[in-house]
């Protein structure tokens, strides 16, 4: 008998079921086919302006830095400004994201841009978030050639562009959006929910930033 049959058999015997009861299969199918949100905290249920403000406040509380920009056209200079202010090399790595590619990079002529996944030798990466979640200041990034997952973890500094209109109040709204984009039950390989830069408190419960992931997370909220 395979491990599968043995384990599922034990589960069914323990629950006293055969697995064919229509009430049970119906309940499971209904829950999976139409995923419903449970209680959503009131905190993030604000208008657009309120969501952007709450997102920034929550992200800063967990040691991310947030900069508001009026237009996508301002992004290249904001990236350059951040690198100069922190004495970082004028070089970033990003994915094939068309929104990033269409930014007016000529406004920052000394900035070198590399494309593709990271092998661990990049100081700074630049990504575009699929969404932000106001209630906890969380970014949601999707894997793929547009925004490779290695860019979220290997470089010391991670700069992320986030459209103000993409800031939701809660996670559930974003899961719904992903479901609409990818289809029911489908997800990209990796969905990263990121709340602040990497940290550890494993030595005497002292919180230190910059464990294995980025030491700094800079978020450009656009629009």
């Amino acid at each position, binding site marked *: 008998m395979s491990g599968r049959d043995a384990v599922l058999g034990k589960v069914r015997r323990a629950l006293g079921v055969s697995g064919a009861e229509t009430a049970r299969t119906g309940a499971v199918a209904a829950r999976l086919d139409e995923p419903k949100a449970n209680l959503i905290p009131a905190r993030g249920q604000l208008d657009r302006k309120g969501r952007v403000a709450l997102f920034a406040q929550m992200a800063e509380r967990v040691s991310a830095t947030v900069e508001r920009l009026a237009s996508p056209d301002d992004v290249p200079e904001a990236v350059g400004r951040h690198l100069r202010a922190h004495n970082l090399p004028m070089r970033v790595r990003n994915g094939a994201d068309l929104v990033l590619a269409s930014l007016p990079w000529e406004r920052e002529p000394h900035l070198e841009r590399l494309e593709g996944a990271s092998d661990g030798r990049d100081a700074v990466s630049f990504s575009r978030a699929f969404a932000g979640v106001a209630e906890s200041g969380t970014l949601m990034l999707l894997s793929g050639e547009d925004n490779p*997952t290695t860019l979220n973890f290997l470089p010391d500094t991670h700069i992320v562009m986030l459209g103000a209109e993409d800031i939701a109040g809660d996670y559930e709204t974003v899961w719904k959006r992903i479901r609409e984009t990818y289809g029911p039950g489908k997800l990209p390989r990796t969905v990263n929910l990121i709340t602040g830069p990497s940290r550890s408190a494993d030595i005497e419960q002292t919180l230190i930033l910059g464990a294995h992931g980025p030491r700094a997370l800079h978020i450009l909220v656009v629009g």
Partner: protein
Amino acid sequence: MEITADRFKENARHALADPQLQRALNHVRHNFIDKRAKAAGALPEFEELRKQARAIKDHALDHLDLYLEAYEARVTEAGGHVHYAETGEDARKIILDICRSVGAKTATKGKSMISEEIGLNDFLAENGIEPVETDLGEYIIQLRGEAPSHIIAPAVHVNQDQVEADFRRVHTHLDPNRDLSEPTSLLAEARAILRDRFLAADVGITGANFLIAETGSSIIVTNEGNGDLTQILPRIHIVIASLEKIVPTLMDASTILRLLARSATGQEMSVYTTVSTGPRRPEDPDGPAEYHVVILDNGRTAMLGTEYQEMLRCIRCGACMNHCPVYHAVGGHAYGAVYPGPMGAVLDPAIFGLEKTYELPNASTFCGRCESVCPMMIPLPKLMRHWRDKEFERGLTPSTQRYGIRFWAFFARRPWLYHLATRIAMRVLGLYARGRGRFTSLPLAEGWTRHRDMPAPTGPTFMALYKSGKGRS
């Protein structure tokens, strides 16, 4: 790890006399409790979320067979592989076979209690595959050859100067005069060393906080980012998870996530919550080429459908041990089993057998703090009491205790005799105290009088007073 739970009392005595450990435990006694209270208090819906989370897990457990099948179908659809393991031995063998299929020499590891439960590291090492723990706390205890003493803060029993000594002992290729006096320099050193190991590993092994039936995804929750580097850089990603980690949908996981970090570390959200589905897609520039999930039973189906089923709601936040006066006093190692604290006192007997672990359900004052902070509303004291009943039924209780209880029961079942005996005992004790009002030592109660005086009875028993009508309003 070697199970030494049957020597809990001896372990506890050593722990109480260990100044290094007592210094480290100070951090648990204060930090975790204040932070959790603040985080829970800042979310008005926290209590209602607990109730909903309990209902989600109860529903998932009642339909576990169907959700496992749905989950497996989605994983397979996404190009991943699901393996079922009845025992720890089965799981170890499945993982070894996967590692051998690519001739793996090293496997990086994200923090996983299931890995501890099945003794994976020793097994891999015996078979020529070097396991590399990458969570800072796990890395520290791996260097020290220890087991975790806490389910979310594995090195909570270690002080900073001990970490420094371990790093100097093991990282011999580095300058012996380097400065390691600050936690930041220790972290930076571990980060640099582990970065190379991440990039060189053939296989990455992580646990899972949740398995999502809706999408066939595994979710890990970390602060360091080590779990992510473990699972995106090597050729193969193996997830090892026990079967009760299944929740129906991403919506359901979101509800429980709002409780997890707040209950564990007092954060609103942990830094990285990562949802992984299958291997990398053809167009993906990074991610693992193979994705395997090993679903472990190891005693859990025997809890299903019994009075212990509620324990399978546990999400491993550690709040119960953070609030436990016994854990505060002796730390995690004294329990002598994989899972310490109140949740361990319920889970360890189910996994490792009551014969070896019956001391653990007794290592509790039943103060109830664990249950009051458990985000999944698990009635931990009640479940420990069920194990105590089983312990007595199976004759595992030491004979002195059994005879003691039988002796007491003889009197308790005969109220007139009981009242007579207590009246005599009180009078004798009163005489024995010779009017001092307290005992500095008392036969059969040395355990008490060694640390404090025992008050002496100063008058009639409560029942005698009650019958006489004095003190009644």
